[in-house]
C-alpha cells in the first residue's frame, strides 16, 4: 500500500520545494472501555502552501480524528499514534509538550464547529485575541490590542471596535464564527485546520463564512485542511479533495476530478445520495447499510459490505491506492483492470 503512494510523490517532490505538510502512514487508535478503536488506519498525503485540502467523510470516518492528530489534540493517555506528521519541517509526533505549545497557534491553528468552545466565556473577544498575540509574538499590549482590531476588521465583523469589548455569548452564531477565525489567524499560521466550521450555521451565513475563508486563505497564502461531510461545501472551497472511509483515504484528487470523474463506488454513492431538487419524484440512490464499526473492521476493503460491485477478491487483501492519473487516485480493485 505504501509502495503505491511513494510513486506519486517522486516526480513532483523532486522539482518543487518541500511541501508544507507531509503525512506518512498515520494511524491513530484509542484505548476505550470496549477495546481498541482504530480511528485512522494509514493516511498519507502532502499539502503545499496556499492549497486547500478538503477531507470529506461521514460520521465515524476518521476525518476529525485525522485533523486533530495534526496538532496532537487527542488525550495523550488514551491515544497512540504511529507514522509521521511533518508540518513546515517539524516532526509533530516527536515534539515535546513545550515545543508543541509553540507550534499550536503560531504554525498551525484550528477552528471548530462550535465557536463557543474556542472562547473563554469570562473574557471579551478582544482580550482573548490580544492575549494570544502577546503570548506568541511577545509584542506589547497596545500593539496586540491594535492587532486584535485589525483582525476583527479582516474577518469583516461590522463595528469591530465595539465588538472587541463584547463577550462571546453576546454575539450571534455567524459573528462568533468570524471571531474564532480571527483568533485562529491572529499569529499568521502557515496551516489552518478547519473542523466543519460552517455546519452549524444557517444557509445564508454559511456561504458568507465560506467566501470569507477562501478570500483570507488566498490573501495570506495559508494552507487549509477543511473537514466536512457536505459535498456542496467541498465544491465551494477545496483545491484537493480526499474522501475518507473507515480511517483511510479511499479517493484523492483535484476537486473537479473527484466530483466529476469519481473512481470509487463510495464517492459515487455519496454523490448520488446527496439530495438535490432535480431528483423530485424519483427514488434516491442510496448506499445500503451504515459505516463499519471501527472496533472490528472487516478484512480487505472496508467498504466491501456496502458495495454494489463487490467481488470475492475485495474481501481478501487490502486494496492499494491506484493512480489512473498522476494526481487522482482511489482504493478500488475495479480500477486495476
Amino acid at each position, binding site marked *: 500500500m505504501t509502495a503505491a503512494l511513494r510513486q506519486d510523490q517522486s516526480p513532483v517532490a523532486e522539482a518543487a520545494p518541500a511541501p508544507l505538510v507531509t503525512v506518512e502512514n498515520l494511524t491513530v487508535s484509542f484505548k476505550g472501555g470496549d477495546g481498541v478503536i482504530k480511528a485512522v488506519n494509514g493516511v498519507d498525503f502532502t499539502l503545499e502552501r496556499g492549497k486547500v485540502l478538503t477531507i470529506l467523510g*461521514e*460520521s465515524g470516518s476518521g476525518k476529525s480524528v485525522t485533523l486533530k492528530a495534526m496538532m496532537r489534540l487527542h488525550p495523550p493517555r488514551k491515544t497512540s499514534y504511529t507514522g509521521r506528521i511533518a508540518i513546515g519541517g517539524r516532526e509533530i509526533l516527536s515534539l515535546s509538550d513545550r515545543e508543541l505549545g509553540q507550534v499550536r497557534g503560531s504554525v498551525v491553528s484550528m477552528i471548530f464547529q462550535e465557536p463557543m468552545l474556542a472562547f473563554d466565556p469570562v473574557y471579551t473577544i478582544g482580550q482573548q485575541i490580544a492575549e494570544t498575540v502577546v503570548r506568541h509574538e511577545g509584542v506589547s499590549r497596545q500593539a496586540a490590542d491594535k492587532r486584535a482590531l485589525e483582525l476583527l476588521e479582516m474577518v469583516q465583523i*461590522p463595528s469591530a471596535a465595539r465588538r472587541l469589548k463584547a463577550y462571546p455569548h453576546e454575539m*450571534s*452564531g*455567524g*459573528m462568533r464564527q468570524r471571531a474564532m477565525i480571527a483568533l485562529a489567524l491572529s499569529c499568521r499560521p502557515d496551516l489552518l485546520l478547519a473542523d466543519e466550521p460552517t455546519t452549524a450555521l*444557517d*444557509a*445564508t*451565513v*454559511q*456561504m*458568507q463564512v*465560506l*467566501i470569507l475563508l*477562501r478570500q483570507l486563505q488566498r490573501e495570506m497564502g495559508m494552507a487549509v485542511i477543511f473537514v466536512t*461531510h*457536505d*459535498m*456542496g*461545501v467541498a*465544491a*465551494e472551497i*477545496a483545491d484537493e479533495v480526499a474522501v475518507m472511509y473507515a480511517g483511510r483515504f479511499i479517493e484523492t484528487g483535484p*476537486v*473537479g476530478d473527484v*466530483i466529476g470523474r469519481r473512481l470509487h463506488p463510495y464517492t459515487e*454513492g*455519496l454523490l*448520488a*445520495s*446527496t*439530495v*438535490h*431538487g432535480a*431528483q*423530485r419524484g424519483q*427514488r*434516491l*440512490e*442510496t*448506499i*445500503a447499510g*451504515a*459505516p463499519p464499526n471501527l472496533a472490528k473492521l472487516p478484512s480487505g476493503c472496508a467498504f466491501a459490505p456496502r458495495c454494489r460491485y463487490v467481488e470475492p477478491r475485495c474481501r481478501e487483501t487490502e486494496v492499494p491506492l491506484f493512480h489512473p492519473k498522476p494526481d487522482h487516485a482511489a482504493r478500488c480493485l475495479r480500477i486495476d483492470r
Partner: protein
Amino acid sequence: MESKAQPLLLVKDLKKYFPILGGVLNRKVATVQAVDEVSFEVAKGETLGVVGESGCGKSTTARLLMRLIEPDEGAVIFDGEGVGEQHGLSVRDMRRNMQMVFQDSYASLNPRLTIEESIAFGPKVHGVSGKVARERARALLAKVGLDPNLFVRRYPHELSGGQRQRVNIARALALEPRLVIFDEAVSALDKSVEAQVLNLLNDLKREMNLTYIFISHDLNVVQYISDRVLVMYLGKVVETGTVEAIYGDPRHPYTRALLASMPSMDPGNRTTAPALTGDPPNPINPPSGCRFRTRCAFAEEICASTEPRLEMIHPAERHAAACHMEIAGSGHSKAMATSPPKAPPQPQHMGVVA
C-alpha cells in the same frame, strides 16, 4: 391537490409571543415574537415543506400545532374540526391524528426503554392492550426497515443515528396518524443515511395515505420531498407556493437569497459574493414594517412603515409573497402601479411650521 377539497389542516393567524422575564421581580422585560399571524393550509396527501433560518419560528409552529405549547391566538382546524374548541376536536384526539418526529434521534427516545416499549407506549396510552401494542410495534419496525427480531429488545444507545430515526418514525406512526410533522428529522443524519430515510418517508406516505409537514433548513431536501413550500422569516410567512413556483420563480428577496446561498456543487462555478450580509436578526423586538428590510437590498421607506401582506401572485400555483415589490400600488418604486399612487406624505411642511 384539488383546491376545492377540504384541506386536512387549516391554520389561521397562529400567534405565539414568548415573554422574556428578567430583573429581581421576574417581570417581563421583552417579548420574542416567535410566531406571528402565521396562516397556511395543508391538503390531504400533500407534503408541505417549511424552510427558514434559525429563529424563524418553524419549530415553534410545529410545537404549536401539536399543542406542546399553547398558542396565544389563532385557530387550527383539522379536517374541518377546530382543535381544542367547544364542539371541535379534543387535543387528545388531535394528537392521535397528528404526530411529530423530532430532530435529535437520541433525545427523543427514552434511554431506559427498549425500542419495542418506546413504540408501544403511544397505543397503550390510547387504550390498546399491551399485547396488541407490542405486535403493532413489531409490524412497524419491519415497515421502517428494521428487522423486529433483531431490534425489539435493543436500547437506543445500541443503535446508529439512522436506525434511531427509523424507530422514531415507527413511534410516530404507531398511533396511525393522518398527518406527520417532521421537525428537521433528517438534518442530523449522514448524507447516505439521509437518502435512505427520505426514500422510506416517500414509501410510507404512499402506502399509508399520509400527509406531511416537513420542516428543514436544507433547501435541497425540501425541494426533493415537498409539493408546496412555506418560507418563514422571523416568525412570519414571507412566501408560499408550489415547489416549482418557489424554486423556479422566487419573488421575495429573502427566498431568492436563500436559494442563492445553496452551494453550487460545481467547483468551476463557485459562488463569489454572498447573497446576504449579516446574521438573521434577533426575534426579540424585530424590525418594524417588513421584518426582512434590515438585510434587504431593495428596502425603501414604505418597507419600514408598513407591513406587507401576503399577496397572491399566481393563483394556479398558489404562489403568494409578502413583499411590497409584489403589491401593486404599495408605494415601492419597483412595484407595479396599477392603482394610482397615493399623494406622497409631505413632512417638509411640518419643518416650515417649526
